[in-house]
């Protein structure tokens, strides 16, 4: 019993560990906050712009050059707004819900490796931690939906719960296949495993997207559904549910939900980069320079890949209509879960045979 409860300790040292505990903590918190606040906003800006141009518009143009500060301006606007709490709402739950949704999305970045040596912590159960902490977010959504005292919010919250449970399974099963192939649940080890894969005893560099393309597609679709991104935005479905579980929220709390969505988008993309796209490697087989420059280049490569994936998520949002609730459930239970089980079987067989 005690062994289970023991916290998984950090395996590989991070460059952020500078000896001084306080300073290291500041650095690590800084990395997590920058990833969650700044990179999320960059991703949000990318979404605004890409979506605009795909619809023959320009997107935001006024705040900052080419609208670069639009999301900052939005944030300032949200802060200024009146914080309305509905009379019949469960006030404490209503107020706590956005935080419950936001904090897990932020904590996910704790284990995400950004470059060689650049990570807050390399947990032995990193992948497990990332997926587990991501699942807590659904609690915030359910709380918000329930506490709003609004039928649209309630339906939205229930839809979100149903959807997140349905898509949690293919997500975890697809990730499990990666864990099997890498032989570790540490995200840093998974990146390393993609540099040193062994086929018949020959070490080769191969990103996991190549042997596990099926797994990648499943993970991608499930991640989009986990984030309630269109075309899987049934919980929000503005044409039927006003704004789903966010209907009654205004001001800073609404902004927190939105930030959760963008932060989740960055986090899920980062996870996909680590699991399938070789993390901080430029291309399979290209060696990274050593030292500081290598670390910086690695971070840049990771962020570039994250932006690429966010672009694809946005692209799917623009191109495809929203799925109906039954279609959405069907895709998960009847297609994605069997396929992800098949994926595990294939990967396990490959792992044993090769």
């Amino acid at each position, binding site marked *: 019993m005690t062994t289970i409860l023991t916290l998984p300790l950090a395996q590989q040292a991070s460059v952020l560990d500078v000896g001084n505990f306080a300073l290291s903590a500041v650095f690590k918190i800084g990395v997590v906050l920058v990833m969650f606040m700044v990179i999320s906003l960059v991703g949000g800006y990318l979404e605004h712009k*890409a979506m*605009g*141009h*795909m*619809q*023959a*518009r*320009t997107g935001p*143009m006024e705040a900052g050059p080419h609208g670069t500060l639009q999301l900052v301006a939005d944030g300032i606007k949200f802060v200024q707004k009146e914080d309305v709490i509905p009379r019949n709402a469960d006030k404490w739950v209503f107020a706590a819900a956005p935080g419950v949704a936001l904090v897990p999305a932020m904590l996910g970045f704790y284990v995400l490796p950004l470059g060689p040596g650049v990570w807050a912590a390399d947990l032995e159960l990193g992948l497990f931690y990332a997926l587990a902490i991501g699942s807590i977010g659904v609690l915030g959504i359910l709380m918000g939906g329930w506490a709003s005292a609004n039928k649209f919010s309630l339906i939205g919250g229930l839809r979100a719960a149903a959807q997140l449970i349905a898509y949690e399974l293919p997500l975890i099963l697809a990730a499990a296949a990666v864990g099997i192939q890498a032989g570790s649940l540490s995200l840093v080890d998974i990146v390393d495993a993609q540099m040193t894969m062994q086929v018949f005893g020959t070490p080769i560099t191969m990103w996991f997207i190549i042997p596990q393309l099926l797994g990648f597609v499943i993970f991608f679709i499930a991640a989009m559904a986990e984030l309630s991104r269109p075309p899987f935005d049934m919980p929000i479905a503005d044409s039927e549910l006003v704004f789903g579980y966010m209907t009654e929220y205004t001001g800073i709390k609404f902004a927190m939900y939105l930030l959760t969505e963008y932060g989740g988008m960055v986090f899920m993309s980062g996870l996909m980069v680590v699991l399938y796209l070789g993390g901080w490697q430029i291309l399979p087989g290209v060696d990274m320079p050593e030292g500081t420059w290598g670390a910086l280049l690695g971070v840049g490569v990771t962020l570039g890949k994250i932006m690429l994936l966010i672009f694809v998520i946005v*692209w*799917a949002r*623009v*191109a*495809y209509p929203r799925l109906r609730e039954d279609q959405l459930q069907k895709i998960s239970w009847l297609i994605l879960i069997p396929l992800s089980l098949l994926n595990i079987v294939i990967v396990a067989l490959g792992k044993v045979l090769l």
Partner: protein
Amino acid sequence: MSPVTTPKSAPFGVGLLKGAAVTLKHLFRPAVTQQYPHERPDLAPRTRGVIALMDENCTVCMLCSRACPDWCIYIDSHKETVPPAKEGGRARTRNVLDRFAIDFALCMYCGICVDVCPFDALWWSPEFEYAEYDIDGLLHEMDRLREWMDTVPPPPPLDSGADAPAEVADAIAAKQKELDAARDAADAAASEAEAKTDEGGDSSKPAAKSAGSGKPNVADVHVEGAGEQLDQEVYDSLIAEGKSERMARAKAKAAWVRAQKQKQLDEDSDGGDA
């Protein structure tokens, strides 16, 4: 009714790829957005922006006010008695416009008032930037409506080959008549003056000849060159200008007569000199 035909189903995924291709294609095309406050929108020439009033044309017939579905046109007027134009005539009454206002908060831009106005007093202008913080500001009084008149675009050009509008043709004809009369008078004055100068000193009174005296001299050269052909020349040039055949012939005849007169005068004066 024809039987319902189900579209031939494409293989799975083709539709998804097509949709993705369409959006990606648009990503690399220029956006159609017009950055409005920074760049002006390209409006159609007959855009219904604001209604302008040419108050000189208004006769207070009240047709616009009555036709307005929103009752948003307010007109006040009074009658004035105009004294008789001739001695012993009858005094007339005339409507004088005191107030003409359009409430653009009520106006629905149907344009019936503009269409119904028989005296071209109301016009559409493409100006649209007259939003107000106070709804009272949308009530445009006569002076403001008159200012919009400066922004009314000229009417579109007529189709090629179309007759000139009646009022324009009439105005041209009237002006031409006036000019002809003035020229005839000038000719007569010039010939008189020339006769006088011939009798007296040559260069003593150049001012008395004035502008009119130059023309007969120029005409002299033409008349002397070819008497009968000149008519044809005038006629051709007028036809080329697009004048009617009747008018051209009349003017050509007049020119010939003038030339003849001038010729005779010249001959007389030559004889006198000799």
